[in-house]
């Protein structure tokens, strides 16, 4: 009896063994048939049904690198598998789902939000006429731009006066973008802007007085979704005299609003200022140093600032508090010229974080 039971057990063992071998070969033979339903909702993940695949055998790869599994998270749910790559799939690349050595599905993804296109909303300074010691420019985009590659690869500057492409902007290892990656700050090489420095003596000023330049921003620059700009953009610079004057608040003209109105307070700088610093450096305060709520608008090629209060003006004294770091186009701030040697006992250097101007509403 015992030997009979033993024989049955042995037969059962062999049956299980053969079944395992059979299943294994079945799976091997079902190449290209395992995917029943494939879904891809966006660039973030793919999911599919597979009757025969085992999680451990599945990989997603780039077609051009079939032996390099893409890092990501697999979420199995019975016969349903979802793969979320660490980095979203790149539009228009060809991917493969592989079961061991076999490709069981090929796919590619479309760019995300392909209906939204990115434009350049503004190039500061908006004026074409700039001093020869212009220090920086800003490009403002309507959507976040790609965070790889060098911005300067997409910007060319031509000196139209001598019909030659020139290097004007400072190459920085870490580009100066805002947090959203929609505003790029471009510096004209400060070493060349400052007179008497070696880069200035060897290469001269980045832009020359009397010359006219065209800055081209190329249409193949891509946004964060991999979509190129809608078109190329052009900005003209006509270079005028060096600006060797610090902005002086007492030369600004201020138009004072009437009491019990929401009339704007207008400040005329009499020269173009740095757009972003203007938007950051001003606060209007009442006589008790409470700041007045309202909105600031820069206009007339960054020569004018308008402040519209939320509430009516009351009679009384007010002050315009300005951070001294406010700069004109040549980087001259309210304390000193950009081109200042801090070693020399220069009497033109002032200190203090703030300057203020007062006005009376009456």
């Amino acid at each position: 009896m015992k030997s009979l039971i033993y024989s049955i057990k042995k037969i059962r063992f062999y049956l299980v063994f053969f079944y395992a071998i059979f299943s294994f070969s079945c799976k091997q033979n079902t190449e290209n048939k395992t995917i029943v339903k494939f879904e891809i909702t966006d660039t973030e993940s793919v999911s599919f049904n597979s009757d025969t695949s085992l999680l451990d055998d599945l990989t997603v790869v780039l077609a051009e690198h079939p032996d390099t599994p893409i890092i990501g998270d697999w979420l199995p749910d019975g016969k349903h598998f979802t793969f979320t790559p660490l980095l979203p799939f790149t539009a228009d690349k060809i991917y493969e789902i592989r079961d061991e050595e076999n490709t069981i599905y090929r796919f590619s993804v479309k760019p995300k939000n392909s209906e939204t296109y990115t434009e350049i909303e503004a190039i500061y300074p908006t004026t074409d006429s700039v001093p020869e010691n212009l220090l920086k420019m800003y490009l403002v985009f309507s959507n976040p731009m790609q965070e790889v590659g060098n911005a300067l690869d997409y910007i060319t500057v031509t000196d139209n006066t001598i019909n030659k492409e020139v290097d004007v902007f400072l190459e920085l290892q870490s580009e100066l973008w805002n947090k959203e990656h929609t505003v790029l700050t471009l510096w004209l090489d400060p070493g060349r802007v400052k007179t008497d420095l070696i880069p200035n003596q060897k290469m001269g000023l980045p832009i020359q007085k009397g010359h006219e330049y065209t800055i081209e921003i190329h249409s193949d620059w891509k946004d964060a979704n991999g979509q190129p700009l809608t078109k190329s953009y052009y900005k003209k610079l006509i270079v005028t005299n060096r600006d060797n004057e610090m902005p002086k608040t007492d030369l600004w003209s201020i138009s004072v609003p009437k009491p019990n109105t929401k009339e704007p307070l207008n400040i005329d700088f009499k020269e173009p200022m740095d757009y972003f610093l203007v938007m950051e450096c001003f606060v209007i305060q009442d006589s008790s140093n409470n700041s007045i709520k309202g909105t600031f608008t820069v206009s007339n090629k960054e020569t004018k600032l308008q402040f519209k209060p939320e509430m009516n003006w009351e009679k009384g004294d007010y002050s315009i508090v300005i951070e001294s770091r406010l700069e004109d186009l040549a980087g001259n701030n309210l304390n000193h010229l950009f081109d200042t040697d801090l070693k020399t006992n220069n009497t033109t250097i002032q200190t203090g974080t703030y300057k203020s101007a007062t006005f009376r509403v009456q």
Partner: protein
Amino acid sequence: MKKIVFTLIGVGLAITLVSYINNPKSSLTSNFVEGNPEVASINALSFGPEGILFLGDSKSATIFALETKDTKNNNVSEANMENFDTKLAATLGTTADNIQITDMAVNPISKAIYFSLNSTNGTPLLMKLSNGKFENVSLKDVSYSKIKLADPVEDVKDNRGRDQRVWAIADLKYHNGKVMVSGLSNKEFSSTFRSMPFPFTNEQDYASLEMYHTAHGRYETYSPIKTFDVVNINKKDYLLASYTCTPLVLFPIDELKGNNHVKGRTIAEIGAGNSPLDMVIMKKNGKSYMLMANTRHSTVKIDFESIASTKESLTERVEGTDGVAFEPLPNMKNVVQLDNLNNGNFVYLQKTDNDQLALKSSSI
């Protein structure tokens, strides 16, 4: 029964002791929390003790300390990989033009090489290369602490959502209980250097550093330090800093406190038209060297003795090079990342002629 109780207590104590030995609560990580630190970007990496990795995030102007728990000792003396960026990109399902390596740091304990990278849509990633294999290091579920970089300019209260100042963090180092950060602000052309104790407290120093810029031929406070390290000369720590164009300057560390104005001593000029990228201090056979990778010049090597012994203080304009002698390493042009691997060996990423990146290692 008593015996059972004693046995249970004994087992309990033994388990507690074993778990304590396996996971002692380090004083460095005692204020760490578990979770998502919300890293917005990674611009600089540097290892501290106990596998703690410091991350400099320009976008959120924050320094993070991550407990990697990668603390198994390993002795690795070389690392090589051709087409490094293509291979790294393939493990992320993309091509090399869609990623950008922002920094590299070797874990001094495990010798795993950590890379921070940026992708087209700005997603920051932390990867490590260990035993020839790329792995992702989670930035979402980790033990961490963080500190926001203080702005020395006091903000006037305003009501209109001020545009956030962005720091371009250039370099970051941990030394002797302090994290030091150099960089540039996006709004004013001003140098920013901060040092803060670690474990992080609310304390933060922002001394202003003045130096004689040999290529510019004048004293400056606004030039940003591109790369730096800490050197010990006659039992005193100095910040060895390098700037674009390329002066090399020493600042005494003990003076970098509060808002002190500290004057540095310019000891060398490596040559204009160049920006330094990475600096490491290496030791071999009891001798120390400084290696510095550059954008235009080859990587240079300086015998530490000459840094320690120099009385040089350059205060005149330099055309060409001057000061402490340096040796350009001819095979190390276009090195974009550089770090120590182990005693006498260093690892670097080099741009090749076909515009690919190669991971290489070498001994000093």
